[in-house]
C-alpha cells in the first residue's frame, strides 16, 4: 500500500463501500424488504452525518484499512525507507517462506523453532480453553441456577475483583507464587516432598497456569449469562421425568447455553493464543510461544514485513478457530458476541 495506489485505496475503499450500501438499500427498498423513512429522513441531517462519520471512521480507519495495510505489508520485502515504493518493492512470499524454512543461509531444512512454537501455542491454547471450560462450568451453573440472590451477588463480587487487575499483574502474581523462594516451593520443601525448589517457570508450568488463570473470567461470564437464561422449570421437568444429572447437563443445559459456551471458548482461545504478557513475565529463556516471536520480528529483528506476516498467520489461525467453533456449534457470529 505504498505510493499513489495505496492512497487511492485508502480513500477509495470507504467511498466504494458507501456507494454499495446506498445502492443496496435502494434495491431492498424497492424490493419491499425495507420500509419506513430513509436514513437521513429518520435521523435528521446532523445526527445522520454524525452516525455516518463515526461509523465510517471506525469501520475503515480503525478496523479495515489497518488490517489491509498489515496484509499488504506481509507480502512485501524488507527495504530501507528510501526504497519503499521503488522498483525493488515487489510483492513476495519471502516472509511466509521464512516462517516455514528459515533464513536462506541456514542449513536446516525447516524453520523448526518457529513452527514448533506455533503449533505448541495453538495446541496449548486449545487445552487451556478446554480446561477452563471444565473448571468454570459447574460454578457458572451453580450461580445461574441454584445460588440464592445474596450468594450470587457475593460470588459475582468475588469474580469481579480479579477481573480488573491487568494481565501483567496477574502473571506477576504467579511469578511471586511459583518462584524458587515462593510460597509453593516453601510448602513443598517444608512438607518434605522435595528437597530442592522446583523451577516451575523453566518447566513452563508457570506459564500455562498463568495463561489459564489470566482468562478464567472470560469463560465464566459468558457461561453464566447463557445458563441464566434457561428456564429453571425445564430442569425441574427433566428431573421429574427421572433424567440423571449428566443427562440433564448434556441434553438440556449445554444445548441451551451453547452460544455462551462458544463465546467463552473463542474468547479464551483467542486471548491465550494472542497473549503477550504472560509469556513475557512467566516464560523462561527457552520457552516456546508464538507471540513473543512476532514481537521480536518487530523490535529485535526490525523486520516489519516479516512481523506482519507472522501476525497474519496468527490472525488466520484465530479466524479458522472461530469458524470451526461456529460450525461445530451451528451458530452465527451474532449469537456468540452478545
Amino acid at each position: 500500500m505504498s505510493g499513489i495506489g495505496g492512497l487511492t485505496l485508502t480513500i477509495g475503499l470507504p467511498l466504494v463501500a458507501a456507494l454499495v450500501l446506498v445502492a443496496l438499500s435502494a434495491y431492498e427498498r424497492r424490493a419491499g424488504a425495507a420500509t419506513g423513512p430513509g436514513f437521513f429522513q429518520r435521523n435528521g441531517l446532523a445526527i445522520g452525518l454524525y452516525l455516518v462519520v463515526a461509523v465510517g471512521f471506525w469501520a475503515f480507519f480503525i478496523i479495515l484499512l489497518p488490517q489491509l495495510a498489515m496484509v499488504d505489508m506481509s507480502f512485501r520485502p524488507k527495504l530501507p525507507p528510501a526504497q519503499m515504493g521503488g522498483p525493488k518493492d515487489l510483492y513476495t512470499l519471502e516472509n511466509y517462506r521464512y516462517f516455514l524454512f528459515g533464513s536462506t543461509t541456514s542449513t536446516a531444512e525447516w524453520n523448526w523453532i518457529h513452527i514448533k512454537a506455533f503449533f505448541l501455542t495453538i495446541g496449548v491454547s486449545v487445552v487451556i480453553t478446554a480446561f477452563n471450560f471444565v473448571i468454570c462450568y459447574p460454578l457458572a451453573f451453580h450461580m445461574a441456577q441454584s445460588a440464592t440472590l445474596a450468594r450470587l451477588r457475593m460470588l459475582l463480587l468475588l469474580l469481579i475483583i480479579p477481573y480488573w487487575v491487568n494481565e501483567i499483574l496477574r502473571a506477576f502474581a504467579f511469578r511471586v507464587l511459583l518462584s524458587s523462594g515462593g510460597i509453593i516451593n516453601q510448602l513443598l520443601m517444608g512438607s518434605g516432598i522435595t528437597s530442592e525448589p522446583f523451577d516451575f517457570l523453566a518447566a513452563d508450568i508457570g506459564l500455562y497456569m498463568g495463561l489459564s488463570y489470566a482468562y478464567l473470567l472470560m469463560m465464566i461470564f459468558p457461561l453464566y449469562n447463557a445458563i441464566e437464561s434457561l428456564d429453571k422449570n425445564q430442569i425441574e421437568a427433566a428431573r421429574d421425568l427421572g433424567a440423571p444429572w449428566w443427562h440433564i447437563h448434556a441434553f438440556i443445559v449445554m444445548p441451551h447455553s451453547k452460544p455462551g459456551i462458544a463465546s467463552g471458548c473463542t474468547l479464551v482461545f483467542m486471548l491465550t493464543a494472542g497473549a503477550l504478557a504472560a509469556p513475557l513475565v512467566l516464560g523462561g529463556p527457552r520457552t516456546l510461544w508464538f507471540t513473543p516471536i512476532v514481537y521480536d520480528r518487530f523490535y529485535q529483528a526490525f523486520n516489519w514485513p516479516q512481523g506482519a506476516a507472522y501476525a497474519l498467520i496468527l490472525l488466520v489461525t484465530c479466524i479458522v478457530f472461530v469458524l470451526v467453533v461456529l460450525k461445530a456449534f451451528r451458530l452465527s457470529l451474532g449469537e456468540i458476541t452478545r
Partner: protein
Amino acid sequence: MAAAVELEGVNVTFGDFVAVRQANLTIEPGEFFSFLGPSGCGKTTLLRTISGFIEPTHGNVRIGGQDMKGIGPNRRPTALIFQNLALFPMMSVAENIGYGLRVRGVPRHERDEKVKNLLIQVALTEHGHKRVAELSGGQKQRVAIARALAVEPKVLLLDEPLSALDLKLRQHMRTELRAIQKKVGITFIYITHDQGEALTMSDRIAVMNAGVIEQVGDGRAVYAEPRTPFVAAFVGENNQIRGRITQVADGFATLETPLGLLKGRNPVGLGAGEEALLFVRPEALRLGHDGQANGSGFEAETLDVAYEGSVTHVTLRVRTGQKITATLGAGSALPAPGEMLCLGFAPQDGLLLKRPERA
C-alpha cells in the same frame, strides 16, 4: 369550513403487500370518527398515514384543506395517542404534558400555566411532579390525552388507547373520552377492533377489512344496514345462510337455500340467479313449533341453551349441519336441548347481500 381530514384515493403498499387500498373519505370538523376492523385490516396504517409517519404510495391526505404531501409528523396539526401511550418515563407528568410546548419554544411561564390548566382539566392536579411509573392505568391514559391536547391539534388520533386497560376502567374511559371530545370540540379519529367502543363513542364509523373501507356510516347504519357481508358479519352477531336468488320484488327477494326458500330485504338490488348471503340477527329469530306461513322459516335441533338472565342464547343445528344462534328476550319460553324447533323471521329482518367471490 374545510373538512378536518380528507383522504383521496389513498393507497399504501409495502413491497407486494397492499395495506390500504383506494381510501376515499371526508371527516368533518368536530366529529368523533372511528375506524373499526380486525387486526391487520390496515386501520393503523391509515392512522399513521394521516399523522405523517407513512407517506401514501398513491393519493392525497388533506388536513384542514391543506395537502400534507412531504410534511413530516412533527409539522402536522395532528396529535397521536399511541396504543401503549408512549409516555416518556424519564420525565415527570408535567414535563410530559409540556413536552410539545417545550419543543415549540413556548416560554417557560406560559408553558407552566398551560400545563397547570391541563392538569386540572384531566383531574391530575396533585400528580404533576410524579413520574409516569407511579401512576395508575387510568391516570396514564389521562396524561397521554393531556400531552396530546397541549399542542392544540386540529385532529386528535387515537390508536386503540384503551386496549391495555382493565375492563371496568375501559368502559369508564369511553364515557370520559367522549366527554373530553365534546368539551374541546376538535376532531377525534379513533382506531379500534372493539365494536362496542366504536358504537358507543362515535358519530360515524368506517368499517375496514383487508385494506379496504367497506362502509362508512353512523352506528345504527353499520349495525342495521350493513352493505357488505363483511360488515354484516363483523358488526354484531349475525347468522348467515348461502343461496341463490330466485325472485325479486319491491325491495325484497327470495333466496333458494338448502333450508328451503327464505325471504329478506334486497337493499343492494340483487337480480334473480345471483349468488347471495342471507343475514339474520340472533335477536330477530323466533322459535316456534309450527312452520311459518310466508316461507321464511326452517327446522333446527336445539344444541345448547345458555341462560344469562336478561337474555338467553340458544345454539341450534340445521339440516345442513350449520350452527345458528338465536337470542331470546327475558320471559320467553326456553327450549330443551335436543328439541326440534321451527325457526322463523320476518322478511324485513332478513338481509340479502351479494356473496363475495372468494368466500
